[in-house]
């Protein structure tokens, strides 16, 4: 190779080096405690961490099997993962019990995927005085409703929100002096989702039913693929840029409610759905939810995470929903059985008949 070629390639290689610090496979192996890890986010995150060479211990009650093979992995990949990942069985609401189980294990990092209230988090921090980083799964639900959107991390939060516990936890982390990072997802979707987001639409599309949408269907929200979320969680690991920081993590684009219905149809190869609009105020659905998403605009800017972590979502909406369909609903699996009772109430009131498939 010519000297000039070598120089050019070296220069190109240098230029390719990101100026943003990332914590990926270059991070030295850490002893990681994950609260949760057997249902959704943690299923993907724990795999990424184990693959990157970290020692990962899941802390769960054991109600769900510690490991289960997922549709997107080979038998060998599953064997590797299940042989390496560790487990501590316990109830995180039993603070003393939990502390005794996790203290003195030498954990350096905590990924708290399922924490809700600050009181659940404090004992963990107290039990691990040498903790290097507490990484918390919070929620964009903490933002105060606003006429100006998207929500940025610096925006006002709502102390009265349903996610107050998440907010309290972030405040606690700030006060404890341990390096911490908080991730605020919006609506998460992807294979194994136990929150019926895409599943709700897929049930109706499969049944060939019209899709009831509250009000105009122009409400704008944001869906983020769970694998992109897991990637973001990995990037904050041992990353000083992320210490003391909150990050919105979700999709690169937003989407209207009507748009989600159409995107789900594309993902599953269904025909364009009939949308039926109704005013929720005209109905009393009792305790049942007639639609899986909050009836308001709800979306965030992810630019901080992009700038700080060099992260960006790999899945566009239709791609991501297709991934979810192909690896979950499309294989015949789902978490909640179809329940069209609120749909029927709506359709009846609007005088719309549903064609029953033969």
């Amino acid at each position: 190779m010519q000297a000039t070629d070598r120089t050019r390639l070296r220069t190109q290689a240098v230029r390719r080096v990101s100026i943003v610090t990332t914590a990926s496979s270059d991070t030295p192996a850490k002893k990681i405690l994950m609260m949760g890890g057997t249902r959704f986010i943690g299923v993907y995150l724990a795999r990424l961490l184990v693959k990157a060479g970290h020692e990962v211990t899941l802390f769960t009650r054991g109600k769900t099997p510690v490991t289960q093979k997922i549709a997107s992995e080979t038998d060998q990949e599953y064997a590797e993962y299940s042989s390496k990942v560790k487990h501590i069985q316990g109830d995180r609401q039993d603070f003393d019990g939990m502390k005794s189980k996790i203290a003195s294990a030498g954990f350096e990092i905590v990924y708290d995927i399922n924490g809700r209230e600050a009181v659940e988090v404090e004992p963990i921090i107290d039990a691990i005085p040498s903790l290097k980083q507490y990484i918390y799964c919070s929620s964009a639900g903490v933002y105060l409703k606003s006429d100006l959107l998207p929500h940025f991390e610096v925006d006002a939060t709502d102390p009265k929100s349903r996610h107050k516990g998440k907010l309290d936890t972030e405040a606690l982390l700030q006060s404890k002096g341990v390096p911490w990072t908080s991730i605020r997802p919006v609506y998460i979707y992807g294979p194994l989702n136990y929150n019926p987001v895409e599943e709700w639409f897929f049930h109706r599309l499969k049944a060939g039913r019209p899709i009831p949408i509250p009000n105009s269907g122009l409400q704008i929200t944001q869906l983020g693929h769970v694998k992109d979320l897991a990637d973001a969680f990995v990037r904050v690991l041992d990353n000083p840029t992320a210490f003391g920081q909150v990050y919105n993590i979700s999709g690169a684009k937003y989407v209207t409610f009507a748009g989600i219905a159409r995107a789900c149809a594309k993902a599953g190869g269904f025909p364009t759905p009939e949308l039926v609009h109704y005013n929720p105020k005209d109905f009393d659905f009792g305790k049942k939810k007639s639609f899986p998403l909050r009836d308001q605009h709800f979306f965030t800017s992810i630019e901080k995470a992009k700038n700080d972590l060099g992260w960006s979502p790999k899945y566009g909406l239709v791609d991501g929903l297709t991934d979810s369909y192909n690896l979950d609903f499309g294989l015949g699996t789902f978490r909640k059985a179809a329940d069209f009772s609120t749909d029927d109430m709506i359709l009846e009131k609007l005088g719309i008949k549903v064609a029953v498939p033969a």
Partner: protein
Amino acid sequence: MALSLQFPVSTPRQASLEISKLTPGYIASSFSLQSPSTSSLHSLGTSSSIAMAVKKSSRRWRAAKTVAMAAAANEVSNRKVLIVNTNSGGHAVIGFWLAKDLVAAGHEVTVMTVGEESSDKMKKPPFSRFSELRDLGVSTVWGDPKDVGAAVGGKSFHAVLDNNGKDLDAVKPVVDWAKSQGVEQFLFISSAGIYKTSDEPPHLEGDPVKADAGHVGVEDYISKLAFKFCSSFRPQYMTGSGNNKDCEEWFFDRIVRDKPVPIPSPGIRVTNIAHVSDLSSMITLAIGKPSASNATIFNAVSDHAVTFDGLVRLCARAAAKEAKIVHYDAKALGIDAKKAFPFRNMHFYAEPRAAKEKLGWTSSINLSEALKERYEEYIKIGRDKKDIKFEIDDTILSKVG
């Protein structure tokens, strides 16, 4: 309103400060914070930047290493810039602010307004205030886009911005003239209206556009002409002093007179209202960084969406008054929303991601602040006392009952 937890940045962060212009009473900045302990800012030594203490506001804490590096230094200075400016409409105000920003950034500016200096159109803002430009050393001339050379008296320019034409008929003569003169950088004020509607907001640079739109034809033509540098800017709606077209005034007119504000349903439709200073700072950065801005489309918009209802609320807050919103179904009532309401009756929301990523641009003024400023001027010029007829409103309100 219950107060909420603000998130202080607790770690020291790298920072750089760039103030790209300095006009009395007006500061725009593209910056990130240095160490909180010192909370001091340092200048970057570009020909246009000055170190200043800037009041920290929570909105401006969007520090990022990449942004800092992008904003770090202009590539060029002391450029000769020609702005070919429209003589009316919503975009007219861009040239006015841009001229001032460019001068503050150390460039030499000529504004060529289309038409004649003696025309009645020149009695309206911003043209009525062009003495402010001349006081800053801007050369103001008038002429025909078909003969720019005559208007500018054979002057040569590094950069030419067309803020006039909506289609190739209007802009081609300017583009061709610039090319023949060896102009290095051609910039075009296009429109975010060319984006195809989508289920997935926001409109982002690179998203599909309506092929038959006049602005698209212009953008394509410019990009094929092999200027050394070229950029296109796609604005939405603007507010700001010197505006030639009503924007928020439509709302103030009703709020200040205690009239209900008719909003076409659903009031949750979103739009984007930028303060023109955010556009002028963006274009100024592009002119100072021709390589960074080259061959790039920029959404020239604010970085927030606002709903129609939300805009009423923000205007009411700016006026310290209550506002009553009356929603109406334009279609059902046979109302032409184009005449009844000042903004497109649909979601129309673009985001300025290219500007942030490539130029290190940040928004310096949010809509709440902008509207307060605009309301003060609205009152100062006595528009609240103006006798206005609300014929279409009255029709709507009578139909809604």
